[in-house]
């Protein structure tokens, strides 16, 4: 078997995927780039090289505001995932094999549970006549329902519920790769557990932490369904704006420019994460 033959066979095996991707992934993305430079006037799209959309997106004051709000929301979600996920990953590392399997089950199974089902569950708990508000009213503790959803809190809570697994798994992976003797050495030299964690464990787990943060941040930037259900019209994010601009205004050029804005933010996050990981490796 010659090398050329092997090469041909590999490309042949890859060809169905490449063909599909070129139609459903590469072409659409290229089309969005082209459309973002088109002009939209009186509901007519004329192609060309215009910067109108970008001028509008950065200049109308609203889009950029919503963009930053989406970034802020994604940061809240990422931070919450770190705070909840890191302890779980640390417990998983120290647990017995059996306990670890159970924990893994609890962490992974939500990954495979329908997102909309999980949102429904939160609506039933946090809604105006959800469990919490109903119970508190029954006990006479509150007169009017507490605003538990249709705000940032509700959205963050429900998105964290969906994406927490994506934080725990990479951190757990990084923690497992740490040689425990480095921590024991630090402890035997008199470092307190907190110092051991801060100066030995945490720096070594940075690659996993960076991977988890990148993943959760990227997913949060693009999430549509959960903010719509949990935020109603009170939490407007960039994906919601894009959807509205296309479905109700048919303004493809503006929506394309906004999509590229979203992609740029995600690209920046990936670059930052790569830098952190490289830094972590140099240690």
């Amino acid at each position, binding site marked *: 078997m010659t090398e050329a033959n092997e090469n041909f066979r590999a490309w042949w095996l890859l060809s169905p995927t490449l063909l*599909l991707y070129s139609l459903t992934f590469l072409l659409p*993305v290229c089309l969005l780039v082209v459309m973002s430079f088109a002009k939209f006037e009186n509901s007519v799209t004329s192609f060309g090289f215009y910067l109108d959309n970008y001028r509008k997106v950065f200049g109308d004051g609203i889009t950029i505001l919503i963009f930053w709000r989406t970034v802020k929301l994604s940061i809240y979600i990422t931070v919450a995932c770190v705070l909840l996920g890191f302890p779980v990953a640390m417990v998983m590392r120290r647990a017995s094999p059996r306990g670890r399997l159970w924990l893994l089950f609890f962490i992974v199974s939500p990954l495979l*549970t329908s997102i909309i089902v999980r949102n*429904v569950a939160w609506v039933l708990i946090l809604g105006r006549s959800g469990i919490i508000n109903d*119970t508190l009213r029954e006990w006479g503790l509150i007169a009017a329902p507490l605003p538990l959803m249709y705000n940032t809190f509700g959205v963050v809570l429900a998105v964290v519920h969906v994406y927490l697994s994506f934080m725990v798994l990479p951190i757990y992976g990084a923690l497992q790769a740490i040689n425990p003797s480095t921590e024991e050495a630090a402890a035997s030299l008199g470092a307190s557990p907190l110092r051991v964690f801060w100066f030995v464990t945490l720096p070594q787990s940075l690659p996993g932490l960076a991977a988890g943060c990148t993943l959760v941040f990227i997913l949060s*930037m693009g999430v549509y369904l959960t903010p719509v259900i949990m935020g109603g019209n009170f939490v407007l994010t960039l994906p919601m704006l894009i959807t509205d601009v*296309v479905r109700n205004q048919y303004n493809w050029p503006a929506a394309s420019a906004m999509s590229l804005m979203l992609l740029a933010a995600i690209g920046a996050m990936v670059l930052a994460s790569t830098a952190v990981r490289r830094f972590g490796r140099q240690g």
Partner: protein
Amino acid sequence: MENEYSSRLGYRLLLAITALVITFLIAPLAILVIQSFTAESYLSFPPPSYGLRWYANVLTSADWQDSAALSLLLACIVTPCSLAIGTMAAFGLNRGPLKGRQALYALMISPMVLPHIVLGLGIFRIALELNISDSMLAFVPAHLTITIPFVIITVGASLQSFDISMEEAAQSLGASRFGAVWHVTLPIIRPGLIAGAIFSFIISFDEFIITFFLATYSRTLPLEMFSTLMFQVKPSIAAVSSLTLAVTAGLTAILMFRGQVAGESGIIK
């Protein structure tokens, strides 16, 4: 001594947080299932009386039947296609002495990191140009784009730990190249194949935003649930959610019992 004490205290704190997190993950779903068995016409917890009233309601409703049928049909078309195409790609990536394999691998799984909203927008535009937006011709390729990366990852991880000399042994004993793969390699990497198939099914069954763009009149189950939920929170939505949960939980259980937990099959690397 002091350190040991604070270490134990610290670990207890970690355990407490973990217990809270697990409760946070599981309790809402448990409550949802309990609520779905209410016999009342409203949702409350705990329900004053229990019954299968809303399950009967949902299972006999034409809207729910149609959307569930469409979602099942779609997932049943997508899963085998995704498994076949993704497995081919995983073999191609694993076996070919390709230059730039890393870059190609990154390209192959990149639909995972592209926000589905952007992907959906682009696919919607192409489907509009081709005039196929509200049909299986658009739904199936769109779903395949987001499921194939999962198959490439799970099957690729299995192939990486597969000892290729077994396949070569079969060939030297007279098996054809394809025969060796079919009778030797595929049975050995079966856990990866099962994981890939289950991920494909669940992702397709649960997909919302891309189908939301594409569909005009067609309603998949997530679309139907969404529009019901936006209109009113009724016990029927709890019953449908519980049924969906049962389907995905069943598939997840298969995945777990096969010893292919996502973290180990390399979903997150």
